[in-house]
């Protein structure tokens, strides 16, 4: 087997040094009836080219984003990742290093995390950001728990514009507890969250651009929350929007959670993704996840270490702020490299390009008979209502090679009011020809 260095001769020699008669002797603590008492019936080891053929055959059964016009968003976005990013993250020293617990020989990872934290803090307009969480959805659940610890209050209100998967994750983490108030879906961008804040509220959770693409008023939400001593958690599933939209921190957000996949990370069918979390300085001791900080070494040279670790499970055990250990390190690296390549100039241009393509998409869709665009505001994503049930319509378009977006009912199957709604996104990869292909096909299907 190509990955196993020992020859049988070496194995025998090593057993000799150990003083064991055979390998089974090393498994003597295993109850006899459980040791190799079975035939797995799994295939035997296989050369590289056969494994590759097997995997390629599976991959070939999927319709990749590049295979045709593509408008699927709803929490994961198809953007261009520069070749440099993917090359660099495959370098051995990044790819095959562990968590930087030995800082003297992990300064690469640590400095990168420090740079990543700085980028995330600047993007969100917050004081501090952590070194990543699993993804935006679990990050949202963590933020909710963090807000409860900070305020010592229990009530949580989720906006009707929050991504339904994120809402479901919060619900599972909180196990439907009575203090979780979930507002009904708001595809028109309407919101009544401000009416639900009271003196028992720990936090309200508002997503912008919301699941349906509408831009929400963060300032108003922050003021209303703060007036009752509650916190505002802002959720962002499309970080590229921050190139064009005001930073939530500048508008009064207390905790910002974002899905960072859009920058540097491929779609990957849902993972691995990148949870960003940022907050105010005074809240850091309740923040989950690793933090990297600057210090000096014994020679006085600048260096970086993981710090404030007493918040974490390996030290605090049952009193930790979270159970998270492994995070999304390599995805954070990809994000940081891509963001470093973009810089402010490139990131701003990227955001404008996304908005420009989305504006073209909205205008084109509005011209299709039987289609209504619900959004007055959007960044790169919008919701349309059509004359037909969306699931079947999207399926027919897929058969024509066009991935036309996400039927809302796929995520909200019990809400009859959303049956005809589709959420569509455009990015810098969306061409004018893609938009024309979509609107033509849509017009034909709806005719």
């Amino acid at each position: 087997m190509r990955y196993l260095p020992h020859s049988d001769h070496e194995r025998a020699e090593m057993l000799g040094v150990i003083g064991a008669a055979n390998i089974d002797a090393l498994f003597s603590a295993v109850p006899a009836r459980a040791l190799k008492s079975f035939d797995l019936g799994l295939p035997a080891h296989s050369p590289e080219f056969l494994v590759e053929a097997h995997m390629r055959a599976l991959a070939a059964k999927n319709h990749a984003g590049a295979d045709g016009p593509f408008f699927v968003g709803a929490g994961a976005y198809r953007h261009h990742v520069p070749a440099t990013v993917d090359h660099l993250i495959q370098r051995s020293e990044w790819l095959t290093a562990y968590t930087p617990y030995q800082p003297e020989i992990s300064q690469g990872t640590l400095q990168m995390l420090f740079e990543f934290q700085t980028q995330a803090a600047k993007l969100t307009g917050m004081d501090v950001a952590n070194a990543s969480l699993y993804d935006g959805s679990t990050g949202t659940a963590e933020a909710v728990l963090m807000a409860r610890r900070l305020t010592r209050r229990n009530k949580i209100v989720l906006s009707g514009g929050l991504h339904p998967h994120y809402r479901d994750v919060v619900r599972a983490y909180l196990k439907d507890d009575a203090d979780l108030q979930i507002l009904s879906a708001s595809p028109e961008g309407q919101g009544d969250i401000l009416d639900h804040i009271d003196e028992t509220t720990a936090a309200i959770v508002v997503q912008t651009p919301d699941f349906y693409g509408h831009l929400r008023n963060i300032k108003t939400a922050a003021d209303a929350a703060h007036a009752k001593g509650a916190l505002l958690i802002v959720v962002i599933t499309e970080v590229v929007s921050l190139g064009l939209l005001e930073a939530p921190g500048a508008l009064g957000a207390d905790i910002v959670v974002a899905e960072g996949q859009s920058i540097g990370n491929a779609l990957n069918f849902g993972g691995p993704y990148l949870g960003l979390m940022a907050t105010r300085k005074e809240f850091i001791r309740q923040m989950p996840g690793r933090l990297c900080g600057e210090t000096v070494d014994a020679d006085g040279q600048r260096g970086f270490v993981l710090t404030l670790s007493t918040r974490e499970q390996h030290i605090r055990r049952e009193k930790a702020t979270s159970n998270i250990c492994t995070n999304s390190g390599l995805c954070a690296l990809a994000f940081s490299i891509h963001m470093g390549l973009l810089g402010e100039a490139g990131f701003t241009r990227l955001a404008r390009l996304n908005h420009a393509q989305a504006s073209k998409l909205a205008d084109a869709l509005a011209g299709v008979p039987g289609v209504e665009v619900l959004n007055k505001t959007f960044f790169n994503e919008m919701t349309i209502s059509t004359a037909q049930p969306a699931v079947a319509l999207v399926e027919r378009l897929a058969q024509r090679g066009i991935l036309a977006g996400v039927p809302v009912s796929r995520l909200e199957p019990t809400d009859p009011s959303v049956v005809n709604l589709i959420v569509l996104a455009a990015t810098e990869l969306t061409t004018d020809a893609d938009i024309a292909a979509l609107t033509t096909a849509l017009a034909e299907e709806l005719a």
Partner: protein
Amino acid sequence: MTTKFTPDHEYIRVEGATGIVGITQFAQEALGDIVFVELPSVGKVFKKGDEAAVVESVKAASEIYAPVSGTVTEVNDTLTGEPGLVNQDPAAAGWMFKIAIADASELDGLLDDAGYAELTK
């Protein structure tokens, strides 16, 4: 003025009806550099043995238990900015909180100088 000790390495210096609480020299040495002290809020009521504060070093967090029952009357806010005082001067400048002793008889169950010295021998 007497000072008593718990087997968990807290001291309480009794001044009239008030006790001043901190950790011992022995504890400070065992913990290493203190980087953060989480203090109780004034007015908080503890029963003997309740978790009252937390001291953190880089790689450990240790709870400080109330040596006696009572109400917190004052906390040493200086520690927030200078947690290292607990290392430098645990018995004086590194004190953590003052407690209005609810039941002075609880002090009898604590260790005196000799008893504590024996414990940490």
